[in-house]
């Protein structure tokens, strides 16, 4: 999985590209945690190029949501494809993470 990170107006945007399974989960979690500790107002995870997420990979998002809650910043995900969105819904993550159709929506533009 490829991970990129950029800052946009106080919000850090992380883009995941490829699969987020057991083998990629630790790296994804570390990137999310460091982005939350560095950000000023929030983190957006762009899932536009993420085509698979498993139980192990998904845990990185819960860790992110909890860390963001503790710091008092926003934590959002955007551009989920149908399969990834279905995994978020089954796991109830749509109840604790704000999901947006596009990156622009997530950034509030």
């Amino acid at each position: 999985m490829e991970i990129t990170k950029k800052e946009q107006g106080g919000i850090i945007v992380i883009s995941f590209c490829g699969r987020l399974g057991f083998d990629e989960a630790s790296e994804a979690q570390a990137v999310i945690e460091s982005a939350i500790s560095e950000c000023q107002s929030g983190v957006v995870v762009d899932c536009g190029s993420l085509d698979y997420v498993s139980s192990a990979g998904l845990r990185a998002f819960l860790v992110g949501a909890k860390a963001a809650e503790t710091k008092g910043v926003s934590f959002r995900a955007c551009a989920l494809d149908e399969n990834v969105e279905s995994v978020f819904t089954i796991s109830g993550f749509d109840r604790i993470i704000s999901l947006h159709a596009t990156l622009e929506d997530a950034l509030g533009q």
Partner: protein
Amino acid sequence: MLSLHQEMLLLAVNDDGDIEFTAGTSTFRLAFVGACLIELALKDKIEVDPEEVRVISRDVDNDATLNLVMKRLCEHSTPQRLGFWLSHLQADVQEITRLTLMSLCDQGILKSEESRFLWVLSSRKYPVIDGTEQKEAKLRIMETLLGDSIPSTEDSVLIGLARAGGLLEAFLSRKEIVRLEGRLEQVSNLELTAGLVELAIQEEQEAIARAMLVSSYPI
């Protein structure tokens, strides 16, 4: 720290050491086997998605219950869906329960006592020894339900399993459960394996309801 299947069974033990009536229901059995699978997922021994369950590591330390479940998972050469395993493992549910009760006895949390029902039929009771672990599990559930923060995966899943297995009624009134329904919905099963277990239980309940409807109104 206790594993999920241990905590779930511990919540089903009442003050007299009997396993609550709900533990005999098909819903509880599905949730209980689900607890074993979720525990394996949380320990990174299996990886789960909506299509299949894959074994990552067969080494489950000294947990006899998880060893049995892992043995079954490894008996199939091709990966199967979670729903398949929930059904398939029902054949082992008595043994899974016995092994989990034994592990709680070995850890000094329950004791095993022979008792008589109607002075003739022998049965076994599992009274708690000092109740610390049971109280702690209930307290964690209550703290999460009465708070407003995102729970840990473990607490979220325990709440979902207790809810699915009908165990919340053992320490919450019907009125309280109704009052907390929104929070229960929000914090239960924040984990993919647990979400899939919940879906499988809903499907089972719908199938039972359909079967009852058909038997009530035969064509």
